């Protein structure tokens, strides 16, 4: 239990570090470390599929996306103005207040979780996605399609009209 707790503490520290650096590149590096750490924590808790999917999606797609943005906009030469204006320090204060006043969800008694008790996590995930919530999955796929095309629609168009 000590090992899981210390890994979660490392997650929290990396999360603070993502917001408290001056250079965007270091922020991206800390976020990659945070993603790998979170997938490590998930693996320790027994969610193997989620750990691998986390790694694939977050590090493989999202971090690479941010890296491309930083590369193409040539950001490393600049520094994040939010840090020097004090907003990042304010964010750290929010973390401290969160720790002091315990604004977290309570760990009450656990209820009955509907799943197959002996199955692996991916079997339970498959049952949930494709049996219990199958119609919501299709609706969600339509929503994600809307999000995909919405990114084109919201971007300002340079031609006249439309």
């Amino acid at each position, binding site marked *: 239990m000590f090992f899981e707790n210390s890994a979660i503490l490392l997650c929290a520290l990396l999360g603070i570090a993502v917001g408290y650096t001056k250079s965007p590149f270091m922020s991206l590096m800390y976020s990659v470390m945070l993603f790998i750490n979170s997938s490590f924590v998930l693996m320790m808790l027994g969610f193997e599929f989620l750990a691998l999917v986390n790694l694939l999606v977050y590090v493989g797609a999202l971090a690479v996306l941010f890296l491309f943005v930083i590369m193409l906009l040539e950001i490393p030469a600049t520094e994040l103005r939010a840090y020097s204006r004090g907003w990042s320090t304010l964010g750290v204060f929010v973390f401290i207040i969160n720790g002091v006043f315990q604004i977290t*969800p309570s*760990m009450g008694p*656990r209820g009955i979780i509907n799943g197959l008790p002996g199955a692996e996590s991916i079997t339970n995930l498959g049952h949930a996605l494709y049996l*219990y919530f199958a119609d919501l999955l299709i*609706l969600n796929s339509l929503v994600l399609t809307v999000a995909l095309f*919405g990114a084109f629609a*919201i971007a300002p168009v340079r031609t006249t009209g439309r």
Partner: protein
Amino acid sequence: MFWNSIVELDLCIGLLLLILYGLLSLRNGHVSLGHIRFVCQAWLVLITPLEVQDIALCVLTVVLLQSFHSFEALLFLLLAYIGQLYMMHSCNLVSFYVCLEAQTLCVVVLCGLLARGASTSFSVEAALKFLLLSAMVSGMALFWFSAMYQRTGSLDMVGQETFWILLVMLFKLGVAPMHMWSVDLYGSVPKSLLLYLSTAPKLSLFTFWAASWHHDFSVGVFILFSMLIGSIGAYGQPALRSLFAYSTINEIGLMLLAVETAGFHTLYQHLGIYIITQLLLWNLTDKRLFALCAVSLAGLPPFAGFFGKAWIFWHAMSVQAFSLLLAALFCTLLSLVYYLRVIRLFWTAPVHTAASFAGAPNQTTLTSACAVALAFAPVMLVKPFII
């Protein structure tokens, strides 16, 4: 469980077929947008709505589809309709979230899509603001959904995390102190989308609240905030749209009062009257009729707006929520003055009025139907007050 939801699955498949039909027929020269719009409206009606709120949403969407002029807008509206229909009947957190995202994303994309001409940057800015704020708020809701699931192991809505989820719902409704996005959005969005934005999401969210949402604390703080900000905030506004955005915040505060006192019949009645008023408001080309519409919104008899508010106040009095009732009456009085200013401006109609009424010419049937409904509905509504 899967076979119970096969009906809603059919809705999604029907939407996909409509997309195919639209895409195939736009290549064909004989099918115009009006035909596609008619097929969309007929599809909405043919999915048999079972309850009154379903029928209300169906009729509202059929009416709203009339004012959109591009094929993609119709599709996004239909997907948002499916999301709203699901949401009104959902009792599970996952379905609530997916439907909320369906409806919100479609509205966001429509904000950016319908930008044309000179107001392109305004619409894009409004769409971006709305997207960022609602995405962040939905993320917060998802966090508390998972916290509730972790604590209780069930996805039904019990527990103390409902406060934070309630904050998210109130954000989407446009309740103060989370109202700033609606004021900005109302001012920079084309009129047809404004019609949609001020009526359909509120109907679906309030129906979901009345049907499946249980919480054991009061929303009195939000009622007071909304009514105060809605009545006082409209005084400094130079633009008509932001003035009516603040009046919407006031009305939402009043509807929250109806929910707080558990008078759901009064909630639906006032919501119905409010929706008809909004449809009338943003469709008008005649200035004097606009003034009469503002009279109805202000809650002056003999128009139907008075009876919507009177029912809510009557029910609040009967459950003895006197402090909230006094605050609501005070704020209604405060808001009366800016409505009277609108009425004075539009009734006497001077030459240099800054409002522009470029309404579409095919709205006359809708306008006359709504005007008739507002003017003659009090005949049916006045009965409990006379006896």
